[in-house]
């Protein structure tokens, strides 16, 4: 049984970004900015927070990438942990690949298939309840985008988790401030997210979504609180690549060869 976290130094935000850029360029697909904004959250989770001895361990901590469109960052993370061969990572977005734009649970290391926004937190809450009812100490982590807070179903799951005091449920909100067609403040403003979650009965705090040690400490400190936990992670969309920062078009846009070269140079310096 997996009981304690281990540190995996191979999983860093910079390495995740480099591989995200390489695979995005090779496959000529977008969702780059969304993947870059969560790179450090994944580095915190898979670099130390998650208790996962192997993807097959039934008592491993679970992870639900509710914002499934950033799956490339997760594939890269699984690769950096040694669970996904580089040759398979290179099939990203190819024909007959298990590595599509959105994650499929048929791929070892992916706990749940996602892609339709607003569904992941329900799955995570059910998985957390299953763990508790089974007497398992495994925890469930979920990562939602700020735009997923537009979905009413997300709030159904928020209320359910609070009602059932699912203290083994940990939610990260990737608060990068933008969604597919605009900035969240213009589309569906999410002001005072910490206060909103607190009002819904959660243990809520804001974290810097690019500060791995701070996120790791925040999770450890939350462990004794009997409520479900949410970390509202302030992030920069397209983090590490100056021309993507805060730019709506990089939700969907693929990079040119020149843009790729510049992105790699900039990420290497972070």
């Amino acid at each position: 049984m997996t009981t304690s976290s281990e540190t995996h130094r191979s999983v860093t935000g910079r390495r995740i970004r480099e591989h995200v850029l390489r695979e995005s360029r090779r496959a000529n697909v977008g969702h780059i900015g969304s993947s870059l904004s969560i790179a450090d959250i994944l580095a915190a989770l898979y670099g130390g927070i998650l208790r996962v001895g192997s993807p097959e361990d039934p008592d491993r901590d679970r992870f639900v990438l509710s914002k499934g469109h950033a799956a490339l960052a997760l594939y890269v993370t699984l690769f950096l942990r040694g669970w996904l061969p580089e040759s398979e990572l290179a099939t990203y977005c190819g024909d007959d690949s298990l590595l599509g734009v959105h994650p499929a649970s048929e791929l070892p290391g992916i706990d749940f298939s996602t892609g339709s926004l607003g569904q992941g937190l329900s799955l995570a809450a059910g998985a957390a309840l299953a763990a508790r009812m089974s007497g398992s100490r495994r925890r469930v982590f979920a990562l939602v985008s700020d735009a997923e807070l537009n979905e009413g179903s997300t709030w159904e799951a928020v209320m359910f988790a609070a009602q059932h005091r699912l203290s083994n449920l940990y939610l990260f909100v990737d608060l990068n401030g933008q969604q597919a067609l605009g900035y969240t403040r213009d589309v569906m403003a999410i002001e005072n997210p910490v206060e909103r979650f607190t009002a819904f009965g959660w243990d809520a705090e804001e974290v810097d979504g690019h500060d791995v040690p701070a996120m790791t400490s925040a999770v450890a400190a939350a462990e004794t609180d009997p409520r479900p936990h949410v970390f509202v992670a302030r992030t920069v969309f397209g983090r590490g690549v100056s021309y993507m920062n805060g730019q709506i078009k990089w939700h969907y846009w693929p990079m040119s060869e020149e843009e790729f070269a510049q992105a790699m140079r900039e990420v290497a310096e972070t």
Partner: protein
Amino acid sequence: MRATFAKTLTEIAREDKRVLLLTADLGYMALEPFAEAFPEQFINVGVAEQNMVGIATGLADGGFIPFLYSIAPFASLRAYEFIRNGPVLHRLPVRIVGVGAGFEYGTAGPTHHGIDDAAALRPQPGLTIITPADALQMRSAMLATWDGDGPIYYRIGKEEKVVVPGLDGRFRLGRAETVREGNDLAFVVMGALAPEVCAAAEQLSERGISATVAVVSSFNPSPVEDLALLAQAHRLLVSVEAQHVDGALGSLVAETIAEAGTASKLVRIGVRRSPQGRSGSQRFYHALHDLSQTAIVERVLSLAAGEPV
């Protein structure tokens, strides 16, 4: 069937602690036997059907067998995409129980009628649909299927006492059950309309028309071979369902006949009209949509007389 469902599930749960019952705040005077016997295995998730399916997906992934209870359209249509991306996509043993098949919630009106649930869910790959014809068959079907691997939608009624003559509670997954043999035509009926159709067949026999009655209670797997045999043996097939004619039983029979290449004629009896604001009892709706015993008999007689269908 509701009471039978609760009673049967209580028996199953006594033997298997993986069985859970979740409700979206419905089931007053129906689910109490389970809730009282197994309070730790009973969860009212509140009025939140899609979240209930998502929660159940996580529970099933963790080794449980959750049964989800709500009124048919809420259980199926409100939660549709969660069903598709949850238990269907992950191939998990979630059991969705939609109560109020057809027009059983009569006066509650069109928001509560289960007349498009089976049709809507049938395209989902690997999602078994079970729509029992009476409470005895409901019990057999549950006992035969509850611990299977994939997801199931149980489409159940409220009627406990009326039984289908000759069915004796028989249920075989993916098979049609013939409860009456005849030569002139074959009725193919889904769900709790079966007694009505049996009564119509009896009435027709008094008029010299002999009808087979086959009860279809499952889709995915669907009784394709049984239906093809029925089509080979009868010149006329009449499908009867308290459901929109497109998508569920009538469509299955039409597809089967076409693919089997038989020459039978098919008449599909089912819901063809939009709601018009006037509500009433189940009997009222059956008459309105030509699903009553009388209407079924008249339809067949007009066919026999060679009138346009």
